[in-house]
């Protein structure tokens, strides 16, 4: 994993086995009672490793918790997800909305421990 942080000594929420997230899709999860969207991305075409991201699960434009069901993709080098409702795009690394400068989502640290996906507290970044 390219982008995962060591969460072992911080408190994270265990989500599910890594395999149960189909490649290039997301799943919804509850972290501290809040909907979170967790995405598993295949290695980029030009090499590298699988990537794992977690962002706020609620679509900020409609207040509906469906972001985990969006389509992932890339814009230049940035990995992104598009809301399934009205297709606004969000950067998975920093939660920034590409279609509205004023909107940024919370992001969460992720890790895989013993094959289990763990989503940590809100990213420090």
């Amino acid at each position, binding site marked *: 994993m390219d982008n995962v942080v060591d969460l072992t000594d911080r408190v994270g929420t265990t989500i599910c086995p890594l395999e149960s997230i*189909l490649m290039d899709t997301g799943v919804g999860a509850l972290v501290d009672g809040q909907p979170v969207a967790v995405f598993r991305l295949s290695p980029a075409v030009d090499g590298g490793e699988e990537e794992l991201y977690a962002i706020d699960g609620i679509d900020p434009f409609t207040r509906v918790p469906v972001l985990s069901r969006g389509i992932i993709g890339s*814009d230049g080098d940035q990995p992104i997800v598009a809301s399934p409702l009205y297709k606004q795009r969000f950067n998975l690394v920093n939660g920034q909305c590409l279609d509205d400068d004023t909107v940024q989502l919370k992001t969460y640290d992720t890790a895989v421990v013993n094959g289990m996906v763990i989503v940590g507290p809100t990213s420090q970044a």
Partner: protein
Amino acid sequence: MDKPSLVIIGNGMVGQRFVDEVVKRGLEGSWNIFVIGEERQPAYDRVALSSWFDDQDDNALSLVEQQFVEEGPVEYRLGTRVDVIDRKNQTVLLDDGSTLAYDHLVLATGSYPFVPPVPGKDLPGVFVYRTLDDLANIASWVEEQDCKSGVIIGGGLLGLEAANALRNMNVAANVVEMAPRLMPQQLEDGGSEMLSRWIDELGVAQYCGVMTEEITGDAQGVTGLRFAESEKLAEMDGIEDNQLGTDIVIFSAGIRASDSLGRDAELEIGERGGVVTDTQLVTSDPNISAIGEVACVNNMVYGLVGPGYDMAKVVAERLAGSAIEDGFAGGDLSAKLKLLGVEVASFGDNQGNDTTTDIVFVDPVKKVHRRLVLDENSQIVGGTLVGDTSGYDLLVAMARGQMATPEEPQSLVLPDYVGAGSASDMELPDTAQICSCNDVSKGDLKEAVANGCHTVGALKSETLCGTSCGGCVPAMEDLLKVELANAGIDVKADICEHFAYSRQQLFDLVRFHGHTSWSDVVAAHGSGRGCIICRPAVASILASLSNGYVLDESQAGLQDTNDRSLANMQRNGTYSVIPRVPGGEITPDQLIELGQIAKDFDLYTKITGGQRIDLFGAQLSELPAIWQRVLDAGLESGHAYGKALRTVKSCVGSTWCRYGVQDSVTMAINVELRYRGLRSPHKLKSAVSGCTRECAEAQSKDFGIIATETGWNLYVGGNGGRQPRHADLIATDLDDETLIRTIDRFLMFYIRTADKLQRTSVWLESLDGGIEYLKEVIFEDSLGICDELDADMAKHVDTYKCEWQETLESPERLSQFVEFVNAPEETSTPVWIRERGQKAPAPAETEELVIIGGP
């Protein structure tokens, strides 16, 4: 009422153009303007008259907005004839008895079809081919009398067009021409012979060089033609005792200027008819002008719309006080046509004389005959092209003297496919005319492109190029491509930044390499991780080709919102469930069970616009349980979520309806079951009507089927939605088997070649050659791919599975239908209100998220 009166007699193509030119110059401010038209309909596109048979819709051809006619600045009196012009009192007398004073009068009465004085010409079943009413009368005669064969008298342009119209109504067409060959005005012997070979092949019988002596028949209608005895007749098929049997006769023996008003008012009349004018189109009475086919300028009467449009402009300029100095400069009679699918063109001085020489190219295999006429200085002055009209625009420009003929004109006679040096390698000068109907030059088009017209549609509305006969549209498209490329404007059809291919190219690549997953496709042909455009596009291509389960590991991440959950997401994140109801037929038990399911899960229930039932408000996690119940009731996925076949609407048809002529319900069910689950570039809709009353609205569908006494008519390329379009008739009276095979090929060809999210209507309009091209591909296998198309469809039909069935059979797949993987029993729930006894999402402002424990 102190403004002077401008009265226009005739609301045909040129009369209407004159109105447009006058209004464009704001002349309604200084004149009271009246238009008197004998036909019931406001001006329509007579050039495209034959296309009326496609959909029998008068309005489709209209050249003027109904609102303009009713409320515009010009007063229209339609269905009204001018009987007399009283020049002394400057009034016209109308057939409703009223009179109208004029200060200036414009004659735009056009022409009428010439009917030679043959005995029997007034029998029922004898027609001419000029107006919408003529065509309507022909169509009803053919239907009422169930005509099997017909005769067209006259083998010119219009005669062949009429022959084609009969053929399309499944009436065997026979063309009878007095001259020894077809199109005697436009073609010389060699070209005419080649045309005749083409026509033979289309099954239209030709009888040239024969004289019709009598049309036989009785009060019930025509029965045949009797010819003057001649040796030729003995050699002709189908003739017995000098007679040819027929159920209908259409005269197309030339036109005559409608100049009787002028004659009666003693205006000067040309030798061969037409009201004589000077080059400002003023007649022998300075208060009267004549334009269009009724005018005789410089001893010429012009039977084409282009010169008429020029005349309209000259008169409008003159009335606006800024007369064009040289007035009407004369038009030429160049014309390029596609007759019965055969390309034919003639231009400039195509007959030649003592001082001219001809260069001829003949290819008997491809049935091409091209002839150029050169003057003594080896300059091209005219020519005729049959079977291949490549280079036409350049050749016309040379014949008009707009560009010089090159040193070695020989190579110009070669068609494109022969290659090197042929005309299309050269560049047209800016002065060259591209659209002869509307006098638009290459320079005009270039200017419009530079001013921001970047589509054919924009160019059309800016310059009027291509808005009349449409013959210049291909040239306009070519020019647009070149200009955009020169200006550095991107005309790539790339799907998106991740794939430098059009959807069609990508489809071919995937098909050729046999890719079955996104990762293969993107690794081989793309870049990055894709996006919401290319991922679903690739998913659709993979699904069209393999018919596999769309939520498999390799494809799940490609699916658009709705496909991802095999249900349509609603604005509050819940889903709708639409089972397939093939042809709209459903049993009472199934209805009851759907009602029970809706009650048990508290789902909002609505009848859709597509003859089925929609259950709204299901949670993601409820979908499997709901669908299990739906499948148990004997229903299956309706693919309302996919770019796939949606509904095949039906009317009740012959089983119950007193008018029905075929069993439209059974056909609709068969069609729906055959194509269910077929993934395509955009959604597909269909309908089957049991008779021409068309209760199923088949002509608004991607493919629509209408029953006839003997089979089915098939329409393609229609849709409702944002930009409604009526479907085009592609074939008539098909038997069941041919109907299905035709639809198979149509759908597969569309799936292969359409752009992403392009519906059949837009795709059809973007096809070079349009519906005629499509017919060649489907019926004549012009691309040699029909076997592949048939095989691809057979594979689809054989491997179809209900996606919900597949989902419910696999626990792994079911695990996708939870909202929170780490808390499967929890769901978020939107705020509901109750409305008219059912639940509904609360209005957006009041929405607020609650997470609750599951059941």
